[in-house]
């Protein structure tokens, strides 16, 4: 049996799905549960080829409902378990992810967004934002990383396991079909060489000793009898979540300090926005860019600070306002004018952002 999937550091050129499989290996993930859906299939393809060499497991389930719930079972057993999906599969996984929220089950789910609604396209979109952040009969007690590159897919897949097991909330890596299928260069590494220690896992079921004799049995519930009881449980969950928020929230800014126009975009759209900022700055136009990395929870205070001096915000996304809703909620009460540039299910280039910005001058 091979020990470490990656020794030291290694420059590679590969697809995002392959990156996720390698990152999960490097993060010492024990088991993947999965069901085929494009564009995430190759996460499973690479995992099933690599995992046995490192003593890791895989189960192909009958659907995404099962993939989500078997992942919960794996995590409850104290294993770093994960799954990956997209589109309609993401819908089916929301049920199990609400159980993860309620019962503090640190699941990791990689979402490679495809077009929606319905079957739509297998290619690309940013239309799974609302669902990935808030897709349950609950309060959205989860952490969602919106990655923009293969390097980030690697970094944040590893981080997802640690954040999940440290804080015990479900963690999502929100990629998309472009990131899944494109090839790009990145540096893969053994987390240990970067000083990243994998957070230890704990079983919630199948503990040592005879229950009722050596120890109390582990009785895990998600059903409550009264409104008061549930209100208390959820209030405490929200309190715990809010405590975690300042520790996990991440964002990036590009020339926002003296920007009059601030472009807001997340995920792969940030790359077009960054390119547009560069071009427009060269032309003397004061443009900046704000990009949440955790799209949920959201760096609201930091964006509010930008709103104080910006003259205009432009929300850019490959969806019809799903990201914009998050932004609006985050900066509620600010008076800065806001425009939107929506292309549901389609990519955005730097050139078209440049054109749009200049038209509005």
């Amino acid at each position, binding site marked *: 049996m091979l020990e470490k999937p990656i020794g030291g550091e290694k420059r590679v050129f590969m697809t995002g799905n392959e990156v996720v499989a390698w990152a999960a290996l490097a993060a010492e993930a024990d088991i993947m*549960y999965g069901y085929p859906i494009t564009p995430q299939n190759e996460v499973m393809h690479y995992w099933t080829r690599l995992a046995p060499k490192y003593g890791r497991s895989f189960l192909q389930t009958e659907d995404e409902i099962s993939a989500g*719930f078997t992942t919960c*079972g*794996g995590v*409850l*057993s*104290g294993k770093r378990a994960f799954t990956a999906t997209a589109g309609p599969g993401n819908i089916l996984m929301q049920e199990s992810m609400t159980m993860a929220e309620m019962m503090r089950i640190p699941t990791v789910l990689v979402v490679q967004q495809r077009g929606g609604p319905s079957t739509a396209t297998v290619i690309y979109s940013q239309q799974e934002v609302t669902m990935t952040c808030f897709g349950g009969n609950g309060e959205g007690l989860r952490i969602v990383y919106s990655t923009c590159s293969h390097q980030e897919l690697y970094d944040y897949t590893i981080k997802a396991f640690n954040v999940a097991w440290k804080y015990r909330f479900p963690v999502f890596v929100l990629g998309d079909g472009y990131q899944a299928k494109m090839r790009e260069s990145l540096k893969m590494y053994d987390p240990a060489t970067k000083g990243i220690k994998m957070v230890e896992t704990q079983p919630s079921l199948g*503990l040592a000793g005879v229950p009722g004799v050596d120890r109390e*049995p582990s009785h895990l519930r998600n059903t409550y009898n009264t409104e008061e009881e549930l209100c208390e449980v959820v209030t405490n969950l929200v309190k715990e979540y809010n405590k975690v928020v300042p520790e996990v929230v991440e964002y990036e800014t590009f020339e926002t300090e003296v920007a009059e126009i601030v472009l807001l975009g997340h995920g792969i759209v940030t790359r077009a926005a960054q390119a547009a900022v560069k071009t427009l700055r060269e032309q003397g136009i004061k443009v900046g860019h704000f990009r949440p990395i955790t799209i949920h929870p959201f760096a609201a205070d930091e964006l509010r600070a930008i709103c104080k001096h910006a003259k205009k915000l432009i929300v850019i996304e490959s969806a019809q306002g799903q990201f914009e809703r998050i932004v609006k909620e985050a900066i509620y009460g600010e008076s800065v004018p806001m425009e939107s540039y929506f292309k549901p299910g389609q990519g955005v280039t730097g050139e078209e952002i440049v054109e749009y910005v200049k038209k509005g001058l």
Partner: protein
Amino acid sequence: MSVVPNMPKSWREETKPHKFCPGCGHGLVLKALGEAIDELAIQEKVVFGCDIGCSLLSWDFFNCDSVQTHHGRTTPVVTGVKRARPDRICIAYMGDGGGYAIGAQHLVNAAARNERITAILVNNCNYGMTGGQMAPTTLPGMKTQTSPYGRDTDSMGYPTQGPEMVAAIAREGAYVARGTVANVRQLKRYIKSALQNQIDGNGFSFVEALSGCPTNWSTNAQKTWEFIEKEMPQYFKVGEIKTPGKKGE
């Protein structure tokens, strides 16, 4: 002086008396399961998953690590545990709605993969917790809240023959039986065989237990018992349907 009745050692005394309705069959099924766990001395290794519906009331029933799941999702949760911890004895406990309707795809595929888990399904011909609606197992002509004029087989089909379906799908090594709370000794024997089958690593094991629901059937003790003993076996044949090394009938 209070006299505590004899309980299986694996039962959790602090949560007794249990929360099922008077006359409900769950208590008997769980007694048979508790005694089987005791006799096999596996309490330490058991991971017990329960479905949503009346079966959820068993979440703190045993001195065993236990987890409530969602309606129909106990089979995958318990499968996930078993795949991650093959050294555990994993039990999925569910009702007929959870197993044969909303969770049917999980049951069918767990059987097809020969998952080394034990599923125990309580068949009481209706959805109990939600107030007595028609279930896959509702008998022809039987009145429920959603079949107030009786189950019309022309539009709603016939009762699902669960164990027969599982036996048809399951591979060699699987154990499939149907017991009844009207014969608890036999039911216990089936449950014990099902657990032993998992311990031996042979394959999937499945026991359906015919059971009563006087609350939703609106029956007294005598009528409840008559229904379990006389009506249900007309559609649901009690016995072992598939045992390892023995072809199904």
